[in-house]
């Protein structure tokens, strides 16, 4: 069977369906009476079953089938939804997920699911005979009145078309016994049909028909806006046609019998045509294609090279002062700027992709820990670069586990504190400037300062003297140092010694940062700041003595030139007055140990940068200008260099370092 080319589609769609089942199940848990949700779940499960049977994954389709039976019983009000049932269904979804993951890793998707199947059966049987009956309901192929069996893709297309108010017809065309040019007649019939609407499916397949591999009759499934009589009369105009029957095709009656191998093969064999047709139909609603992320990465890499050359061209044209060259380069710069934003946009995906697995996880955790938790997700549509999305999942899982395990108290304790027994956990994402913020806030016990200090001192993270002088926020930051776990008992959920320090380093490696704020007994907020994209940033190039550095524009407030006399002293530090605020001066040549080669001038060029509320004025020797640069890492060997977040290659081929102004401001 040629299923490989569909495997990716199958995996993607299976994951989507499982996700939607998960989501809907969580809804159902909250509104157990709402049977429309059950229908929703049933539909997803049914599609999944059909797809996996077509692809030949028996275990997957069997388990889905069992789950479907239970859902069917629920839908027919034979069984009422309770927690026990939901747990079992959740378990089976877990198993299904594991199978799909196995398949995506090249496995066979086989898995021992006896236990879950047993549980599902128990529920089903407990409901009486109804569910069992539904197993046998699978329609039998009737030899005398052949019906077109359809796969799930086709079914979806049919459902879609009937929603659009089109008619689905099953057409039986009988050629005359003495017909000589069967293929030609078939071709003519199809031409008529295709003018009238979309041929969704034919039996035998189009190839077989063209090769005259049929007796005298064939069946076609047509989606059209025309009336049945019109179609019938049009087809009859073709010569050598014996008879034409047009009947309305009922989707709801159709349930695919997945246990019949012959039919399965047929479905698989016919998929190329069926799917092609279906795609044509789908494009009306949604013009998207799936692209392998590797291709996007390759595109991005090539574009990065282009950006470096662009910088070089700009420099050359500036040097040459050739008007036409300059105009052309400027034009190219504009175009590549547009191209850049398109490429970057293509790589943006909503954080929903990461967020949508959390409701399920929180449910499980709150059960395991006997805590009541209400999770709310805000801003799931916020978009982030694909590479960031891939990395951010694990840290977030960790923070959420942490909040549930260490943050939110048990119901008893909460009530004793006068809070509602149900803890609140909020996951919030939003854009701000060139950054995306993700906040995880809980209304739990907050961080106990003394507990943290005690632990930090006993673990030799800080000395007692140091701890005494630390501000609250500095103490809170300690929990993200290596080897920290404040839970009194080490639980399964979090606190295995590795933890928040890993979260911190992962986020920092993405060019972001994480901070924590907490109020005792009111809760804590972990706030993560992430760059929108990792690869191309706007910088201000400056010269410090003879060395060139790049300062990210996102942290610059403005540039200024200050006279030497304007410099004031406060606490032994040089400061300037910047729009009514006292801003400390920072001589980059001292900070970066740049060898002194230039004479000191009477004016200082300063770049005013900020980190949160704090500001600093970086003293440089000259401004070179603003540029888009490709961010490159310094390499593993030098990673962690002080105040340097990376490097970039300038137009002249030299490397310039990118300053991390966050590290310069305490």
């Amino acid at each position, binding site marked *: 069977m040629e299923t490989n080319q569909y495997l990716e589609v199958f995996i993607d769609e299976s994951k989507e369906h499982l996700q939607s089942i998960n989501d809907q199940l969580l809804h159902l848990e909250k509104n157990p009476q709402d049977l429309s949700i059950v229908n929703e779940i049933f539909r997803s499960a049914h599609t999944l079953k059909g797809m996996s049977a077509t692809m030949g994954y028996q275990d997957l389709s069997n388990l889905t089938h069992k789950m479907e039976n239970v859902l069917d019983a629920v839908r027919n009000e034979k069984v009422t939804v309770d927690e026990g049932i939901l747990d079992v269904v959740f378990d089976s979804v877990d198993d299904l997920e594991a199978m799909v993951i196995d398949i995506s890793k090249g496995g066979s998707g086989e898995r021992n699911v006896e236990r879950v199947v047993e549980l599902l059966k128990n529920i089903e049987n407990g409901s009486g005979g109804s569910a069992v009956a539904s197993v046998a309901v699978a329609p039998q192929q009737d030899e005398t009145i052949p019906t077109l069996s359809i796969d799930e893709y086709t079914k979806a297309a049919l459902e879609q078309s009937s929603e659009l108010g089109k008619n689905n017809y099953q057409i039986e065309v009988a050629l005359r016994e003495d017909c000589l040019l069967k293929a030609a007649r078939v071709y003519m019939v199809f031409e008529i049909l295709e003018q009238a609407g979309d041929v969704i499916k034919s039996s035998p397949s189009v190839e077989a028909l063209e090769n005259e591999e049929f007796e005298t009759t064939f069946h076609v499934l047509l989606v059209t806006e025309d009336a049945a009589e019109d179609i019938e009369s049009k087809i009859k105009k073709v010569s050598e046609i014996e008879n034409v029957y047009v009947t309305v095709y009922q989707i709801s009656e159709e349930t695919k019998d997945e246990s019949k191998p012959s039919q399965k093969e047929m479905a698989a064999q016919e998929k190329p045509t069926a799917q092609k047709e279906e795609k044509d139909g789908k494009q009306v609603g949604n013009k998207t294609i799936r692209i392998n992320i590797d291709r996007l990465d390759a595109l991005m890499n090539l574009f990065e*090279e282009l950006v*470096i050359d662009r910088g070089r061209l700009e420099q050359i044209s500036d040097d040459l002062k050739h008007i036409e060259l300059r105009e052309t380069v400027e034009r190219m710069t504009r175009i590549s700027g547009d191209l850049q934003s398109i490429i970057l946009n293509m790589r943006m995906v909503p954080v929903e992709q990461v967020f949508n697995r959390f409701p399920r996880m929180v449910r499980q955790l709150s059960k395991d820990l006997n805590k009541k938790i209400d999770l709310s997700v805000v801003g799931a549509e916020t978009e982030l670069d694909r590479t960031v999305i891939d990395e951010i999942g694990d840290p977030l899982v960790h923070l959420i586990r942490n909040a549930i395990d260490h943050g939110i108290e048990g119901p008893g304790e909460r009530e004793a504190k006068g809070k509602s027994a149900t803890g609140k956990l909020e996951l919030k994402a939003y854009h701000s400037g060139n950054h995306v913020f993700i906040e995880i806030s809980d209304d739990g016990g907050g961080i106990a300062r003394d507990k943290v200090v005690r632990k930090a001192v006993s673990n030799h993270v800080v000395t007692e003297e140091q701890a005494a002088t630390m501000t609250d926020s500095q103490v809170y930051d300690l929990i993200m140092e290596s080897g920290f776990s404040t839970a009194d008992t080490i639980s399964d959920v979090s606190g295995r010694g590795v933890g928040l320090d890993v979260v911190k380093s992962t986020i920092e490696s993405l060019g972001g940062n994480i901070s924590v704020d907490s109020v005792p007994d009111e809760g804590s907020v972990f706030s993560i700041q992430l760059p929108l994209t990792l690869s191309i940033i706007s910088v201000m190039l400056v010269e410090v003595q003879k*060395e060139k550095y790049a300062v990210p524009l996102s942290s610059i407030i403005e540039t200024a030139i200050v006279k030497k006399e304007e410099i004031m002293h406060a606490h032994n*530090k040089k400061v300037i007055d910047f729009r009514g605020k006292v801003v*400390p001066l*920072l001589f980059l040549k001292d*900070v*970066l*140990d*740049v060898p002194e080669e230039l004479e000191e001038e009477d004016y200082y060029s300063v770049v005013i940068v900020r980190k949160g509320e704090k500001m*600093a004025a970086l003293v440089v020797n000259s401004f070179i200008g603003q540029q888009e640069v490709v961010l*490159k*890492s*310094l*390499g*593993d*060997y*030098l990673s*962690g*260099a*002080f*105040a*340097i977040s990376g*490097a970039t*290659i300038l137009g002249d*081929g*030299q*490397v*310039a*370092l990118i300053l991390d102004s966050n*590290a*310069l*401001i*305490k």
Partner: protein
Amino acid sequence: MTEENKKLKVIVFQINDEEYTVPVDLVGSIERMMPITRVPGTKSFVKGVLNLRGVVTPVIDLRERFGIEEVNDTDATRIITVKIHDMNVGLIVDAANDVLDLDEESIEPPPEVVGTVEVAYIQGVSKMDQRLFILLNLEKVLAKDDVHELNELYV
């Protein structure tokens, strides 16, 4: 292996008239000197980073790493780029001019004193035709722990 003795293919380079070797499969390329951008806050043997065909690559001066006095670059000065543990680093050497097959059996553990280089950086020595080759222990030479100077936050 059909040969009796296993051979180890190595690149030979000079520092201070002594001959050192690194296995050829660890070497990415051998480059002439090119502009290097200093990275602040690193030890003096870390010369900085350079643009190696679009990849930003750190460079260290092996003379300084071994505590041998500095000399000015000459026409023969080369940068050998090596890769271990997915880490690309360029090594500045006085000259690099040979590829050799060393008998693995001829490699001996380092003697107590070999030239001027600390024993820790040496994996072994091999004598061949009256020449003494020193096999570098790249893992030690490129140990990450002592790259950065201690730094304090400013402001």
